[in-house]
């Protein structure tokens, strides 16, 4: 009888351990994940969902002198470069890995400094359980860069995607033209 009870405790320990591993895997899979696909000219980038969770900005491509500045957990952002004449296409995909329909208001706007330059999208998004929803928009740099900015000057703007209370930032750095 004591041997049986002893084995029972061992089995229960193993069951708890396996359940713990299962929770780690299932909890990691379940949730709402958002990915941004960016295309400009011949290049395309994918901003994976984990970029937002990083405590440092993610560059595309990584600069030679890379000294990441720390940011808060969940406030990670993406920095990319573009040319003045580029049209940048964005595709925002929301992957709902929950057992219920996910609904949120999506607002996409362009900011320069602390000022809103334009609003691109403001609409509700509804994604059924274990399905994906997406929104697409295009930013034309020629329309966005003010005429007062000389071609030799660089210019930055930020695309802010608000999904309910959650905010995602993509900083677009427009390269200055180099005269030959």
């Amino acid at each position, binding site marked *: 009888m004591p041997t049986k009870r002893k084995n029972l405790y061992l089995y229960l320990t193993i069951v*708890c351990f396996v359940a713990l591993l299962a929770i780690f895997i299932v909890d990691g899979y379940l949730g709402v994940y958002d990915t941004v696909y960016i295309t400009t000219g011949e290049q395309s980038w994918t901003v994976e969902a984990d970029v937002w*969770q990083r405590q440092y900005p993610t560059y595309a491509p990584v600069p030679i002198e890379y000294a990441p500045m720390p940011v808060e957990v969940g406030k990670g952002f993406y920095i990319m470069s573009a040319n003045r004449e580029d049209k940048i296409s964005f595709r925002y995909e929301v992957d709902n890995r929950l057992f219920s329909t996910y609904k949120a208001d999506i607002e996409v706007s362009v900011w320069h400094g602390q000022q809103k330059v334009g609003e691109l999208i403001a609409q509700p998004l509804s994604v059924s359980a274990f399905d994906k929803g997406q929104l697409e928009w295009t930013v034309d740099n020629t329309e966005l860069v003010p005429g007062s900015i000389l071609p030799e000057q660089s210019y930055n703007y930020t695309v802010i995607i608000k999904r309910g209370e959650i905010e995602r930032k993509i900083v677009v750095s427009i390269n200055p033209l180099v005269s030959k």
Partner: protein
Amino acid sequence: MRQWVLYGFGILLCLAGIGFLAGEYVKYMSEIGKLLALLLTVGMFGFLGKYFQELGW
């Protein structure tokens, strides 16, 4: 004696490594996931303790 010290040191390093990785992972877990993981961890160590108690340790 020396080998036991080395074994102990190795086991401690393994436990510290697993603890660190688990801690990093737990940061990104949902609240309900954290609660379940905590309960299962308590249960696991509790049953392990009972097992060793039955062994006569």
